[in-house]
Each structure stands twice: as structure tokens, then as C-alpha cells.
């Protein structure tokens, strides 16, 4: 009866406090949507958003109530350890997308980002020369494929930025 896959070994559910955070954020978004769509003009343009916002607010309230009562059980939440693991990678990601890609050029920034992420999460020792060589080779090969696919085959002109 119990399916082994649907029940992971990790903590089955986040605690009540953790569930409260997203529930309240979603409720706040719903409130903003409702206020914006019911106050802005012309009404013709906002008919559909108004309709959606009604359901949005009701459901967000329902969900928040469940979270307050401790009935929200679905979802594993995020442990501190996982959050710390994600942090450096997420920073690289944000730096790449929101700045570096356009400033330095897509190919230059992507190559560096690829190598950085591959290095950050590689279990091999940082002093291992062989691991460095493998990572650099893989990065170069991957960016070569991307260049072939997007620039040569599909002729997509990506922002060149400072380098390329």
C-alpha cells in the first residue's frame, strides 16, 4: 500500500513556522494584486485580473489559515544545511543572470560561471590538478557545443558585452 518513492527518507514535512512564511508571502501578494486591480482604471482592462484576484485572496486566506492551524503538511521545507549549500551557487547564478552575462558578454560570463559552479560543487580536492584540468576541459567543450548550437546553427546574436 505505501509507495516507497512518494515517502522520502528526508524529514517528511517542514514545521508550522516554516509553512507560515510562504503562506503569508502569498497572502501579501494576493492582497497587492487585489488592491491594484480593483483601484486601477480603465475597468475594461482589469475585469479579468479582478476576477482572478477574488479567487486568489480567498485561496490565500484559506491556505494561511491552514498554516496557522498547523494543517499544512505537504512539502519538505528547506533545512539550514541545504540553504547553506545552495547559497554560493545561487550567488553565482544571480551574478551571471542579472549582471555578468550582459556586461561581459554571454560566452565569456557563461564560461566563467560554468567553471565556478563545477568547481564549487566538485567533491574533489581544490588542490587536485587533474580535477582542475578535467573541469576546464568540460567547460570549454560545453561552451563550444553551446556556441555551435546557438551562434552557428540558430544564428542567435547574444549580447557581446565587454569581451564576447
Amino acid at each position, binding site marked *: 500500500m505505501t509507495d516507497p518513492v512518494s515517502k522520502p527518507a528526508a524529514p517528511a514535512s517542514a514545521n508550522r513556522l516554516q509553512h507560515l512564511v510562504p503562506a503569508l508571502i*502569498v497572502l501579501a501578494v494576493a492582497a497587492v494584486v487585489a488592491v491594484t486591480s480593483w483601484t486601477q482604471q480603465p475597468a475594461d482592462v482589469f475585469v479579468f485580473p479582478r476576477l482572478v484576484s477574488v479567487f486568489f485572496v480567498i485561496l490565500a486566506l484559506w491556505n494561511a489559515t491552514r498554516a496557522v492551524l498547523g494543517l499544512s503538511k505537504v512539502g519538505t521545507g528547506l533545512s539550514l544545511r541545504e540553504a547553506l549549500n545552495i547559497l554560493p551557487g545561487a550567488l553565482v547564478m544571480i551574478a551571471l543572470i542579472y549582471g555578468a552575462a550582459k556586461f561581459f558578454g554571454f560566452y565569456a560570463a557563461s564560461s566563467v560561471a560554468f567553471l565556478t559552479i563545477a568547481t564549487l560543487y566538485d567533491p574533489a580536492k581544490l588542490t587536485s590538478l587533474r580535477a582542475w584540468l578535467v573541469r576546464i576541459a568540460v567547460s570549454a567543450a560545453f561552451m563550444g557545443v553551446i556556441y555551435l548550437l*546557438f551562434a552557428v546553427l540558430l544564428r542567435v546574436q547574444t549580447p557581446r558585452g565587454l569581451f564576447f
Partner: protein
Amino acid sequence: MALRPRLRGGLNAVFWELWSRMEFLTYMGAVFEPLSLALLVGGTIGGLILGATPGLSPTMAVALLIPFTFHLQPAQGLILLGAAYTSTVAGGAVSAILLKIPGAPANIATAIDGNAMARKGEGARALQLSFLASGVGGVFGVFVLIFLTPVLAKWVLAFSFPHLFWLAILGVTIIGSLDTKSFVKGLLSGCIGLWLSTIGTDDIYGVPRFVFHDSLTGGINIIAALIGLFAIPQVLDMMAKGRSSAVIEALEVPRHAILSAVRELISRARALILGTGIGTIIGIIPGVGGQVAGLVAYDQAQKFSPERDKFGSGHPEGIIAAESANNAMVGPSLVPLLTLGIPGSPTAAVLLGGLLIHGIFPGPDLFTTHAAVTWTFIDSMLIGQILMATFGILTAGIAAKISRVPMPIMAAAVLILALFGSYSVQQSMGDVYVMLGLGLGMYGLQKFGFSAAPLVLGLILGPIAADNFQTGSMIAAAQNGPWVYFFTGWLNILLIAMVLGSIAYSFWINMIVPRRKAQAQKAQAQKAGGQGHD
């Protein structure tokens, strides 16, 4: 008595009509000319690769190929486009299954159970089933296009603004039960998607709605959103495991015999028939398109399956229904294009351009004056479907090995693909910014039981519902008012009945059934406890 000769006459006419459509066989030879065949094979393999690349949708692939067709004969150009269209739709399943990143909106439903299977080490089996189902659905869809085009042309025109509005609402009603264990969070995810779809400048009045940042003036591009909502959480999930566990993740990929996949497909005929049927019907309706065919078929297969509870945790029927539906829709989606010159989907719009460039106008003379080109095109789609399925099945074992790529490399590769993919949709940095924003937000929500599939469904259905409601209301105001316009006529009433039925069923399955089950279990436990006392 008087009816019988008429009936016979009618049947005769139908028979001859169908017989005349057998004409498609006479042009089969043209597909096997060396250059045509080379284009067909090239288009199919290229299409599979493009489709499997996160961020490259079928519409984009076909649009990007149009310039190549300038240098070809009309028939050959269309062979290339037809093969690419066919195989990109199926190729999207590869990344959906192996990476949980659907290549196009059509493959969202495939990702749900397909990726769950891949995580259990059954990636090869999932891919084989997916390509087999695609092939069966696709071939059926092309046969519908071949034999029923004249009949279906009338159907296309029957769907007007109010009907498309109700159809979109029908789609909205399945949101709550899609890929989530929590009914309220599923509905809420859908609501967020519906809201996101209203962001941007209104098409008709040019008034901005919810434009918090300049990148949002054009609205949220569905392909960029899809990349963000699915790919970014995948990357973050890989990163969450940290440095230590990277190697252990590499799963052994067992080989999977092709014959047993065929046998399994036959044994799961219910999902296959449901998927093919739903895909065909949705494909014909212009303006809804294949984006929702997979999701609706998945939902129905789940509702009709006795193993309903196992959907979402790697049930093969989920893949079969979704993939047979999204390929079955390919053929019928060309019916409005070929008969009326009205493109029923974005991809069909691009194909229309491909036809016009070669001086071929859709319309009745398509099957007379331009019969050679038209039939060659349709035949190439038929052969393309078979080629695509064969090629996909043969390479499934190799493709499945992608799950053995070390985690850090995979995370970096998916991130870079997300960047390039979301940018190339319309060569816009705004799309890239929105992509990551949505992705980060989705990751947070996903950890607490929200789900990307209903959110995307809301994002797709929102504009269909809103636009048809708005335009329909204007027509209604000039005629007999909204009540008459939206609530009368057999098609409206039929669709409203289906909407109500779907809502009632959702409540039954999500609210009443679990409660009863819990009660029954409690009663059983009490009984067992009582017996223990005795």
C-alpha cells in the same frame, strides 16, 4: 423504406470521399527521393535534438528553419518543416523525463511521472514508452488529417469566442488536482499562474497592468517562464545536496528491452486511447493548441485509472497519456490552417508563412492544384512520426545515461542552457531576468507544497479565457447581451455541463474521498482494537 436508398447513397458518398483521400498513397514515392529523404531524416534528428534542448520550443525551431527553405523546392521545404515540427514536439519529452525540464509547454505533463521514473533508474523505459506513445498518437493524428479534413473544417468554425472561453475555464477546473498532494495549494498555484498571465501591457488598450519593472511591459513569455519555473528549481535542488554526495547520485541505468516496452504500451491501452483521442480533439480547436493537450490528457488518464494514487510517483500511464496526446494534436492542428488558412497554433502560423513563401495558399485548391506539394507534406509528417519514434526508441538507452553526468557539471550546464534558451526566445534580456526571478520564487514555493505544473497551466489558460471573454463581451453587448451569448446554444450548454461536472468531480476526489477513506480506516482500526479486547 424511402430512407434506405438515401442512406446507401450517403454511405456511398462517404466511402468515395474517404477513398479519394487514399490519394495520399500515390505521393508517398516523392518522400523517398534521395534529397527529400535526407531532409526528412535530417529534420527529424535535428528536431529531436532541438526539442530536447531546454528552451527551444517547436515554434522557434520551425521559425528558425524557414530561411533554409528559401533555397529548396516547395515540397522539400515543407518536408523539412513538417519533420522538424513533428520531432521537436516529441523531443521535448527527453529533457522533461531526464531533467524534469519540459522542452515546450506540451511536455509539462510528461515531466511529472517521467522524471519520477527516471529518478527510480527507469529513464530508458520512460523514454521508450514516451516515444512509442508519441509515434502511435502522431500517426493517428496524421490519419485524422488525411481522412477527415473536409468534415472537420466545419467543426473548426463552430468554436467561437464564448466556447473558447468555456473551454479555457474547463482547463482551469483541472488545476487543483494536477501534480500536487495539497488541493488548496494546487488551486493557489493555478491562481498565481492566472495572475502572472495578466502582467504586461494590455493588447487592445495599451494600458500597463502590474508592470513593476520595465522587463515586464511585454508580459511574461511562456517559454521563458517554463524554463525558469522548471529548470532553475532543478539546478537549486542539485546544489542543495552540496559537495559531498555528488558521486553517489549517479544511478546505474539498466537497459530496457524495446519489445517489453511495446508490450507494456499495449497493456496500458486505456491511457493511450484517452491521450490520442483528447489530443486529436483539442488539436482541431483553433486557439487552444497543443499546449494544454498533454495536461488535459494526463488529468483524464489519472481520473479514469484505478491506480489514481500512484500518478505523480512514476506511473507509466502518465507519460503515455501526455505524450500520445501532444503528438496526436500535431496533425489535426493543421486542419484549420489547410482548409481555411487560419493558423490554429503559433507553430501553424509559422508554417503558414512557409506555405505562402512558396506561393501556396491554403484553401480548397490545396488538394487539387497543389495536390503534389500538399500530399507530399502530409506524407512526410506520417513518415516523420514513424522515423521519430524509431530513432527515439533506439537512442533512449544512450540518452538515459545523461543521469550519470556528475551533479556539478549538470547544474552548471542546465543554468547556462537556461540563460541561452530564455534569451533566444525573442532575443530579450527582460525574458532572462523574468526567467530567473520566477525560478527562484518557484523553488521557494515548491519546498512548501506548491507546484509548477498548475502554475504554468494558469499562465497558458489565463489569456485564452481573458481574451475570449473580453472580445465575446463586446460582441454580446452589440447583440442580445452576455446571458444569451455565453449561456445559450448547445455547444455552450455542453461545455458548461462539462465544467460543472469537472468541478464536482474535483471536490469529490479531493475533499470527500480522502475523508471517507480516513473514516473507514479509523473504523477498521477501532474494530481491530475492539476485537483485540475480546
